[in-house]
């Protein structure tokens, strides 16, 4: 029920809504709960509404950590 996925903002419309993309599919998204939405931001979308912005710097930092973990693991032992 609380599932929400990151989608990329592709278009900001005059009526205050946005068009976001996930895996090449575009969705109309209500962005009224988020301040200062910019094109190419990633928004966390739930039930047609963006509920928060994805902090890309934080996400990338985490991904880097996972990349390192994966490398150490595969260096250290056979899968």
């Amino acid at each position, binding site marked *: *029920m*609380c*599932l*929400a*996925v*990151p989608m990329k903002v592709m278009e900001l419309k005059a009526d205050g809504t946005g068009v976001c993309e*996930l*895996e090449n599919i575009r969705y109309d998204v*209500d962005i*009224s*709960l*988020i*301040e200062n939405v910019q094109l190419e931001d*990633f928004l*966390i979308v*739930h*039930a*047609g*509404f963006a*509920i*928060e912005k*994805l*902090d*890309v710097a*934080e*996400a990338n930092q*985490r*991904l880097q950590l*996972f*990349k390192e*973990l*994966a*490398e*150490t*693991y*595969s260096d250290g032992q056979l*899968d």
Partner: protein
Amino acid sequence: MKYIDGFRNHLAAKAITKDIHELASKLSEKNIEARIMEVCGSHTMSIARYGIRQILPKNVRLISGPGCPVCVTDAAYIDAAIILAEERAVHIATFGDMLKVPGSSRTLADARGAGGNIHVCYSPLDAVKLAKENPLEQFVFLGIGFETTVPPVISIIKKAKAEKLTNISILTAFKLVPPALEALAQDKDVAVNAFLLPAHVSAIIGAEAYTDFVKRHNISSVIAGFEPLDILLGIKGLLQQLVQGKVELVNQYTRVVKNQGNRVALNLMDTYLKPSDASWRGIGTIPQSGLILRDEYADYDASKKYNVSTQGGTPDKRCRCGDVLRGIIFPDECPLFNKECTPLFPIGPCMVSSEGSCAAYYKYSR
């Protein structure tokens, strides 16, 4: 998409699992069992889907909590929605999960089969659109959900006002997570020593919303996202705390959850809603754990507009969802599990939503 797939990397998962096993053996030297409650249904589903329970050491137990809004919806609420559809000739608009939830004797799917106008919506705004296109008909949106879903649902009022629609209202059964945590922590039958806190509820209310709770109850807590690596890191973080005998609130989901939450959403909730006691199916009434519309918005309050009660109701007494949701039994310990009760013919609400503990067990863990 890297912001999804990157959080599912299986080698990184193995590396974190290895750490989890090391931490768990330190715990077992101290004779400690980690009893971690994942409060949120989306965590429950992810844990089942990625087989996380199966890769954990024996002394690390994951216990599902009451965080599936569909599962904690009272039978009386379903009865009220059926009365609206059948006796008041109102159109019901709802998230699809609600259709199969058993009321006292029937479901909304039964009411739809009998000719009731019941519309499944992906977004609450779909209901506004329906109301606008059918000005001579009355629409009621079933307002269930936790803090994540509340702002989208009450946006209906803002939209309806802007469009001058008077034919749409909300039947509220909103629930709040922190008061439920409080009730769980006070419940002597619920023996957990760590909480994996919800991802998107926390996005709305903010990490700080739990600070007092963690201090007061002295219970290790980590906010985690719903992807498998988020969950594994969350579990690892909780085990570290248990090994070190530390208690703190850690936000592992910093890419989405801010300390103060989403101010715009919180203000919107405060404008339209006020706290009230709420009844959780199988658990009972938890003080101040719900949100109802403020008196100024009575026109949008379906229970007032149509004078229906969402109290009472007689669910099937044999269903043990209440014990499942408090982590007292596992779903397969319910005598009806996978016998009379299956996702196709659910007896209790925990078997209905894909996020219900019984349904997640049925699908992935049998």
